[in-house]
Structures are given as structure tokens and as C-alpha cells.
């Protein structure tokens, strides 16, 4: 099934994308409202939450260039030493810029 990108067609596509995205924003919470939150489920969603971050970042590091790797490595080191997010992020971005500039 295809939609022509006339004005109406584009509106329909945007609406479809909106509904699909909305389903992802609402769906997890909706499903959870039928689940009794036992300590086990609570533990599951808590570890899952921080694992989401790892699962975004690790493939980003492996698929990225030297600049991406430098950014993530420097962010990690600064964050673990200073424990402050803003300097860590700034240092990471700076590292990416420097590496890409010098390569």
C-alpha cells in the first residue's frame, strides 16, 4: 500500500506516524496498568531502565567513528571522576570535535 505525497497524502502519513509513535508512548504504561507490581517486576523494570541507556550507547560507540568513541570515552571518564553531567557532556563533545578536527 502506498500513499501519494499530495497535501492530503502527506497529512495522512504524518497522522499515521503520529499514531504509531503515540502507541509506543502510551503502550508500555497501558500494559503495566494490568500488571501487579511485585518486587520482582519492580526489579525488572529498574534494571531494564538503565539497560535502555546502555543498549542505545554501546552500538552507537561500535558503529561510530573515532570522534564518537572519543566523545563517549571522555564523557565516561569525566562523569566517573567529577560525577557532574554537564562538564562530562561538554568534555565529550569537545573531544569529538578535536578528534574530528585533527583526523
Amino acid at each position, binding site marked *: *500500500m*502506498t*500513499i*501519494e*505525497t499530495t*497535501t492530503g497524502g502527506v*497529512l495522512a*502519513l*504524518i497522522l*499515521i*506516524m503520529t499514531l*504509531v*509513535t503515540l*502507541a*509506543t*508512548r*502510551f*503502550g*508500555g*504504561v497501558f500494559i*503495566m496498568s494490568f500488571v*501487579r507490581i*511485585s518486587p*520482582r*517486576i*519492580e*526489579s*525488572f*523494570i*529498574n*534494571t*531494564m*531502565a*538503565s*539497560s*535502555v*541507556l*546502555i*543498549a*542505545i*550507547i*554501546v*552500538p552507537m560507540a*561500535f558503529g*561510530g567513528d573515532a570522534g*564518537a568513541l572519543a*566523545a*563517549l570515552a571522555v*564523557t*565516561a571518564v569525566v*562523569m*566517573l571522576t567529577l560525577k557532574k*553531567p*554537564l562538564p562530562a*557532556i561538554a568534555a565529550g*563533545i*569537545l573531544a569529538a*570535535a578535536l578528534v*574530528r*578536527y585533527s583526523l
Partner: protein
Amino acid sequence: MKNAAYPYQFQPAKVRSELIRMLPISLFVVAFGAAFGLAAVQEGLGPIESLLMSTLVFAGASQFAAIDMWGAEVSVIPVMVVVFAINSRHLLMGASLYPMLKDVTPAKRYGILLLLTDANWAVSAQEYQSGKRNLEVILGGGLVLWLAWIVGTWLGVYFGGLLQNPKSLGMDMVLGCFLLAMALGGKKNPRVLVAWTLAAVASLAAWKWLPANTHVVAGALAGGVVGYFWLEKKPEEEPAEGAST
């Protein structure tokens, strides 16, 4: 709202302070938005259409992927699959906030979920790990991120990309660095480290061998399984859940 079934109280002052807290990252979102706006008009979307997409969809990576599939005709099912796959992390993100979200009325619950996105979720989820309940950042932070995305798209549509080459300035790594800083700022114990290791391995395996865009969900679920079977020894946690379920 002084309802026993929905005890979570939104603090307007905190919503404002969270909004301001997310301002720095929102500036980067403006730059991404501009890149999207530029890409969208180059792919043949009209200015209003591009703005409408950013306003309603508000999910950057999936919007970039969708306009990549744009043409005179667009196949609906592939677009739906790609948008769903990229945004399926929202399912898990929303679920992880449920212990807090169940304490607000359904209208507010689903209302603030409209603004759920990576950055504000990462803050809320991370603070929840250390025992702080913060839905205000979803609302306040989400509002400013949403507005930044719309303003950025508008700038990109009418003025082109703001930066000649955002990548050379490391701008493409802002969100990655932000999310990494959030992860490392959270609780770290052997249980979490094992979960992260498994999540990393599973996400890489999925990234290599499973269909595109499934790696976040695969990795996150793998990490969650560790939590399911390896319960934390309760130190001084919050009072028991379940009173209102």
C-alpha cells in the same frame, strides 16, 4: 488531587525548575531540529508539513528515517514498521516510569506521556533509581524539548541548517553523551553491572544480526531479565509498592 488513589502531587515550581534545567540540552535539540527541517524540505516536504510532523510526532530519529523513505509515493507499512521499531524504546521507557505514573490520574498520566522523550526520561529514570520521584521533569523538561524541536524545525525549514557541519563540532554526540552521563550517574552495583554487560552484548548482537532498529529493545530486555532473577537486597528503600494497584 488530594486523592488517596493518586497521591503524586505535581509541584508547579519544580516543573519550572526542571524546564530551566533542560534548557542547555534543548539548545542542541534546536540544532538537530534545524537539521531535520532542512532535510525535510530537501526531501520535498512543505514547510507547514515539516512543522506539523515535528509538532505531532516529536521523535527525531524516526522522523529522519521516515523522510529518508520519502518520494512521490510512500509505502505505508515500511514507514510504520520503521517508526515503530525506532520508537519502541518508548514502550520500555514508559513502563519503567509506571511505579510513579500509577500515582497520578489517568488523564495526567497519558497527558505527560505525550512529552516523553529520551532526555527527560533519562533524568526521571535515573533519579528514581536513587529514590527520588520526579515526574515534573517529564512535564517541564518535555515541554522545553518539544518547543525546541519545533523551533529548530522551523529554523531549518526557513533558514537551512544552522551549522555548516554539525558533526565536525561533535553535535551528533550530544544525546549519546547525555544518556551516558545519566547512566553512569545512576546506581552502580554488581547486579547493575551484570545487567549492563548483558544489555551491551545483547544490543550488539541484535544490532549485528537482528532486523534494524531492534537493538535498544533487545538490549534493554536482556538487562531487565537480570533484574527479574537477581533481586536487590532491600536496604532503605521506599515503602512497599502495591497499595493502590
